[in-house]
């Protein structure tokens, strides 16, 4: 089986490093893709479940742009809705009617939603959610989960990171996942000071296994937050619309006050949304928060088309089934080669790890070998399935994985 070269990617990167900090910054930085020499750095085009890099290499994409691609790259009903809207008007001096249509659709779709607020990125709405919680409670602090990620605003970053001041992170309290007692303790140590508890619907850190909520965890948290007047915020940016179209909280059986959505909302068109309970609507209206592109009509049309398509085809069901088939096949292959492959998290966005090496170096090598044969796997982050991943994709992926296991077995 052929393995890929990335000469054009690397040449482009050399140019990029001269004029862009890091060359490629943020979550698309190649730095966590170990080894970087096994990964493409630049995409030329994409369609369905696949993309082609600038060297012409083809990949079955199990990262889906780190979540936004949910129906397939270049999905025509979504792109044509966006195009049609943009040809009429996109970013103008007033919003388009599609803003109202999309808001109404989301309120009807999501039981926890009494209203909707639109922005661009997930971090926009997690920050807005915190501001709403602070305005509603008059309190400052936010409890989050260790290893959780809610964007890059200073309040959400880890203490000690560059560019932060002490004041930026003093109001953040981090506790362990599934540790209800730690939430109680955080309250006891900060009585009447906690504005919000913010978490993902299940724990999906990087470089570590995903963890589903323990039995009764969310029920206890929800009840506690209600008792103490803490605003319960679910960051559904990553998992949203993959587990349950009504919000991942519905999948786990609880009701938050605010839910943040982004990624899969519009199949890659730039838009995010915060939905909230009716009780928080008037205070949300008092929090001034806006952005130049937040009212753009094209992405809103794309979001409406995406949600309708996901409903029509039972997107979450398709993704879960594809994820089960993929991960089941990979586990079997690993076992056949004498390795132990652990799968954690929801099947639509699984995290995989070869447990035979605690350092992750074996797993990194295997993911790299799969990628340079055409199945794009990361070793540090959960993967994403989409409704575009076909049975043919999965079969091809298993062939690739088999070859990759053989390659790493020789070295480990």
């Amino acid at each position, binding site marked *: 089986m052929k393995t890929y070269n990335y000469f054009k990617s*690397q040449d482009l*990167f*050399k140019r990029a*490093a001269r004029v862009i*900090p*890091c*060359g*490629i*910054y943020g979550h698309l*930085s*190649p*730095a*966590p893709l*170990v*080894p*970087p*020499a096994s990964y493409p*750095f630049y995409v030329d085009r994409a369609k369905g479940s696949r993309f082609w890099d600038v060297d012409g290499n083809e990949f079955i994409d199990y990262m889906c742009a780190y979540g936004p691609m949910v129906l397939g790259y270049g999905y025509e009903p979504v792109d044509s809705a966006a195009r049609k809207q943009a040809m009429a008007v996109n970013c103008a001096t007033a919003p388009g009617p599609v803003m109202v249509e999309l808001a109404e659709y989301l309120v009807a779709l999501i039981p926890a939603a009494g209203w909707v607020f639109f922005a661009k990125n997930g971090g926009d709405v997690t920050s807005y959610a915190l501001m709403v919680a602070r305005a509603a409670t008059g309190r400052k602090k936010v409890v989050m989960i260790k290893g959780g990620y809610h964007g890059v605003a200073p309040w959400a970053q*880890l*203490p*000690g*990171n*560059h560019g932060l001041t*002490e004041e930026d992170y003093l109001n953040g309290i981090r506790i362990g996942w599934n540790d209800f007692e730690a939430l109680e303790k955080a309250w006891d140590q900060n009585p009447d000071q906690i504005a919000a508890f913010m978490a993902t619907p299940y724990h999906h850190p*990087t*470089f570590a296994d995903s963890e589903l909520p323990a039995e009764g965890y969310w029920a206890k948290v929800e009840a506690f937050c209600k008792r103490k007047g803490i605003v319960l915020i679910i960051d559904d940016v990553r998992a949203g619309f993959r587990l349950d179209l009504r919000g991942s909280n519905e999948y786990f059986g609880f009701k938050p006050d605010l839910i943040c959505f982004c990624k899969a909302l519009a199949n890659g068109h730039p838009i995010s949304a915060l939905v909230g309970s009716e009780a928080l609507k008037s205070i949300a209206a008092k929090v001034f928060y806006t952005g130049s592109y937040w009212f753009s009509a094209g992405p809103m049309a794309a979001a409406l088309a995406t949600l309708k398509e996901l409903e029509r085809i039972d997107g979450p069901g398709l993704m879960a089934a594809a994820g089960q088939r993929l991960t089941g096949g990979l586990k079997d292959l690993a076992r056949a080669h004498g390795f132990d492959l652990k799968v954690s998290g929801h099947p639509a966005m699984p995290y995989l790890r070869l447990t035979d090496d*605690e*350092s*992750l*170096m074996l797993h*990194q090598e295997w993911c790299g070998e799969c990628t340079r044969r055409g199945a794009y796997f990361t070793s*540090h982050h959960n993967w994403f399935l989409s409704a575009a991943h076909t049975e043919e994709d999965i079969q091809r992926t298993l062939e690739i994985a088999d070859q990759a296991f053989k390659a790493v077995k020789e070295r480990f």
Partner: protein
Amino acid sequence: MGRQPKEYELIKANLNLQAVLKNLEEVVEFDPESAALARTWEEAILFRVHHGPSGHLVFRDGRCTVGQGKPSRPSIVLFFLSPAHFNRMMEGKAKPIPLKGFSRLSFLTKDLPRLTNRLEYFLRPTPDLTKEQSYLELNTRLTLTTAAMAVSVLGALDPLARLAVAQVSRGLVNLKVLPRGPEVWVGFEGGRIEAGKGAKERPSARMEMKGYQAANDFLNGRLDPFTAVASGQVLVKGQLPLLESLSLILDRIPVYLS
């Protein structure tokens, strides 16, 4: 995070003693001129810093050993009134107060400064100096040693570094200059950091710099970590969050040591 001057001087004194002076070991081992100077020395010097660290230099059998605390049977004891006094001495702006070893004054005032001048020479690179391969290699070796030892000091004392350490429960990192250059290790355990020369088995993460020039550029901050890793000049593997924390701590070194 705001630093009190006394706290700053204390951290700097610890860095000077445990990270900068530690390089005397390397200079005596790898610089022929320094090796010749120290070849016949048999001295054990104790540095005592009031309200600060204590450490020692031992010259024996042509080698130099630098460590914390008191050596056995010091031949010379040097006292410093404060961490700031010690730091000024390191900058050549103050003298220690000898408490023992008055008969060794000639060693202290003539011989030892020749060696410390060599150390200073190798710790103050210029573009012209680093064009020479042997200089580049030793300067890189010293920078790597300083980095490792400094990490353990900063992880204990610098408020921002301690925040970075708090993100890590445990792990071991090996850092190496490829292909056969110097190696150091850094271990995180229960909120503490230890470091040493050489490599440890079964590290949780590795950072390998492709050659002395890449290592020198990277360790001196002329190459940002993301570009270095993506371009292949620095190879990383394993538990990368350890390396992220390590990188944050390394970035604190220039706050104290230029």
